[in-house]
């Protein structure tokens, strides 16, 4: 494997073959949640979507596995938000299918969304309610008992250093704290798949770093599968999985180090640029 010397090897997973984000490599030792019968947390299969004549997504397929942090990288307008709207069933999947934890929308309808935790790009908290009221509301929507929701509210907020703010109104919190509350809310029902749509947009560098660190830990420690959409490349680490979306098509996918090796680039920024230029030339 032609690894660039600029890439530190301590974080690189010991993959012996190119696997892509589609299959967990059984030789891969960095993911303790892989077993022979591991079911992908989400499987997007040949999904296409049009806005009138304009193709927003073109035959998109990928899988996200438990315990992995998968970054969906794409410039503005690449189709990330459309894809997320399809995964969260805000849009209907016309062509192709989406299966979450083995359950497809077509077969199970809204019930297929049960293993999903979502942090939307836009704040979706109720500003006039307190943090606790917001989280309790969400817990009820997810059918959690009062005692379970109380316990989980304390656990998730504590893990994000936010429990002392539990009785404050959301309106009184700053952007970073609101984002932490949204992450706590998304984790409240212990989802198998955590979906985050550009969650660090508009946040300061320190808050971004804390959130990126927290979510990476969450994936590696609790086994939750993470699908993180971004256009900020410094949020992606060497041991993450990467899917690069451009003009509605997946142009590259796989473990970051392998994507870099294939692109012959020392950094994700360079690899991304090379891939986009290559794609333009191909078209």
């Amino acid at each position, binding site marked *: 494997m032609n690894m660039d010397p600029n890439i530190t090897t301590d974080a690189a997973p010991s993959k012996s073959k190119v696997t892509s984000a589609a299959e967990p490599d059984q030789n891969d030792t960095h993911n303790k949640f892989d077993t022979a019968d591991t079911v992908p947390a989400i499987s997007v299969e040949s999904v296409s979507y049009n806005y009138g004549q304009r193709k927003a997504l073109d035959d998109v397929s990928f899988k996200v596995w438990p315990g992995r942090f998968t970054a969906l990288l794409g410039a503005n307008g690449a189709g990330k938000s459309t894809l997320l709207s399809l995964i969260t069933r*805000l849009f209907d999947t016309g062509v192709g299918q989406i299966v979450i934890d083995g359950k497809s929308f077509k077969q199970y309808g809204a019930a297929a969304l049960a293993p999903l935790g979502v942090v939307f790009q836009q704040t979706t908290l109720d500003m006039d309610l307190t943090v606790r009221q917001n989280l309790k*509301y969400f817990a009820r929507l997810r059918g959690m008992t009062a005692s379970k929701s109380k316990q989980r509210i304390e656990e998730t907020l504590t893990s994000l250093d936010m429990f002392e703010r539990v009785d404050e109104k959301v309106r009184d919190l700053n952007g970073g704290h609101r984002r932490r509350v949204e992450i706590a809310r998304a984790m409240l029902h212990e989802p198998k798949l955590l979906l985050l749509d550009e969650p660090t947009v508009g946040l300061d560098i320190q808050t971004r770093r804390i959130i990126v660190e927290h979510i990476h830990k969450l994936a590696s420690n609790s086994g939750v599968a993470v699908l993180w959409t971004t256009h900020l490349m410094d949020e992606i680490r060497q041991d993450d999985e990467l899917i690069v979306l451009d003009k509605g098509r997946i142009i590259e996918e796989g473990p970051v180090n392998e994507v870099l090796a294939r692109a012959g680039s020392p950094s994700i920024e360079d690899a991304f640029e090379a891939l986009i230029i290559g794609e333009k030339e191909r078209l």
Partner: protein
Amino acid sequence: MNMHMIRAFNGIILREFLRFFQQRARFLSALVRPLIWLLVFSAGWRTTNGLAPWPPYQTYIPYEVYMIPGLCAMIQLFNGMQSSLSMIYDREMGSMRVLLTTPLPRWFILTSRLAGGVAVSIVQVYAFLGIAFLFTYFEFLDLDISLFGHIAVLPALILSGFMLGALGMALSSTIKQLENFAGVMNFVIFPMFFISSALFPLWRIRDLSYLFYQFCQYNPFTYAVETIRFALHGQFYGFGVLIVALTAIVSLGLAIYAYDPARGIQAKPGAKAGPKPA
């Protein structure tokens, strides 16, 4: 209905109440608006508008007695539209997404949300009726509504609340931007209220203008007002109940259709501009 549904239903209702009581100005205006109508309008008209016996009334009644059901329905009309405004706001602010990504059928989520709005509107109506009762007690007004009438009106309020809320919900699905809501005020709320039996009995409207009378007869709000009127006087108005129930069902059906990503106008893949996520 399983336990998940019951908990989600409770959660949605509770949130509507929390939001309502947090927004004190909304609570206050919900009470002040009908009270101004009751005190100012009815006081001015009572001398000239004593009303002849006409079902459900057995005898001549003062004008304020006539106005009460129309004002109860007005509270629900405004609340229904307020609820639809809040749905548009939630959609623009994104919190509607939290609701719509709940692993429950969309019809159930929207019906629960509607029920929350209805519950809030009923609290407003009873607060108004309570104040109206105090006015009667201290002899400012002469409203003769029995305790039984206050209880019997509850099912009528539930039904009319569902109809007006469902109408608002169906409307909200067609409104793309919050700014367009002013149009709803001008073209829905005011015509619905004024072209109805809320302020004047139909027989008097018919005497004045047959065309206007016809408009009133095709307005479902008229039947909501009359259903409430009969119920407040301990009587059942079957035809009104039928019209109100049918309008509620059709409106709710349209709202559910509109919010369904597979079919509705919220996400039409063929649309020129991309569908805006709910």
